[in-house]
């Protein structure tokens, strides 16, 4: 399964969820598959998906659809602190999906540690409920299963290396992304505008 195929599945599964997406090729490919107001693209904040998703989960009503983070192996390894922090803070409404292709797909396809380091085991050791898969059907099944877990959930998805060809760069103003995402949260999660 290529990354864009996994993202096509995730785009369908996460329509009602706040989705925090890692930068570069992953954001571009998700936007190409299906751009949506519930997608919060981190255009350049590599390594922050788990942190932002954790903060978002802590700030939202846990009875609403879970916050979904879509992260890459290289980005997670840039800030692996998110695993112990998520396990410690333990928001029940957090699902982190790791798309692991073993390389830095957006930066020259150089290898990450993931061929040697078991990232799912790291998450499990930090207190996350974990599952793994490498197929589209498995992704649907495990994603759905983890939605019922009442603790931080981690889905390790093995994907093939390679970026989808001819996908346009995301040239969006981050402020416009914030506005549309915050508006979607206000409508769907009943949060209010920040007040002084």
């Amino acid at each position, binding site marked *: 399964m290529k990354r864009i195929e996994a993202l096509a599945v995730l785009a369908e599964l996460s329509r009602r969820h706040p989705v925090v997406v890692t930068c570069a090729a992953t954001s571009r490919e998700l936007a190409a598959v299906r751009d949506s107001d519930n997608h*919060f693209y*981190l*255009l*350049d*904040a590599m*390594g*922050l998906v*788990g*942190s*932002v*998703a*954790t*903060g*978002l989960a*802590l*700030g*939202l009503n846990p009875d609403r659809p879970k916050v979904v983070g879509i992260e890459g192996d290289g980005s997670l390894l840039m*800030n692996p*602190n*998110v695993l*112990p*922090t998520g396990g410690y*803070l333990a928001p029940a409404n957090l699902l982190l999906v790791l798309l692991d292709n073993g390389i830095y797909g957006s930066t020259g396809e150089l290898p990450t540690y993931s061929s040697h380091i078991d990232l799912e085991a790291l998450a499990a050791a930090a207190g996350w409920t974990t599952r793994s898969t490498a197929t589209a059907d498995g992704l649907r099944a495990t994603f759905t299963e983890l939605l019922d877990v009442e603790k931080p959930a981690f889905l390790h998805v093995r994907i093939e290396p390679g970026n989808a060809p001819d996908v346009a760069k995301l040239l969006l103003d*981050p*402020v416009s*992304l*914030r506005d549309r*995402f*915050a508006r979607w*949260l*206000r409508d769907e*999660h009943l*949060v*209010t*505008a*920040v*007040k*002084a």
Partner: protein
Amino acid sequence: MTYAKAVADGIWAANAVKVGYIPSVTVAPVIKALVATDGGGNGVSSRVTPLSREEEAVGVMGAFALTGALGAIVMQDNGFGNALTALATFPTSYHLPLLIFANARGGLGEYNSMIHSISQPVPAILRAVGVPVFELDRRHSIDAWRDTVCEAGVHAVMTHRPVVVLGSFWNTDGMVA
């Protein structure tokens, strides 16, 4: 009233809903005051939590603005080297309010022979990336510390960006390090 309690009171008065901290001996009294006023103990309460690194704190606490609330960070100024990319690419770029109080190191009363290498340029570094900085020290009253921290939080919300308050505890009732 102590300077540390004034900082804690200012953070709550700014309507911060959650405070993440990265420990230092200088801000420990601030953290203890935050926890005590929130009914917790041993460094943790319902609204106060430890975090393991500064850029992570920017991500976790900055995300609260997306939910319509204000997050806050308590840290030491030498951690801004860790936090700079996260600050620039997340709350600054997305125009998200975030209140940060950091104790200042590397100045008067400093014992460490190298920490000034990062701490002294911190105000200039932050201003260079567009993060407003308000500085407090022994010349400001305890009330001014509380009011400045509170108003910095209001300023963050009103101007849609992270705002930093740097406090030097030298010659106050606190400690430098």
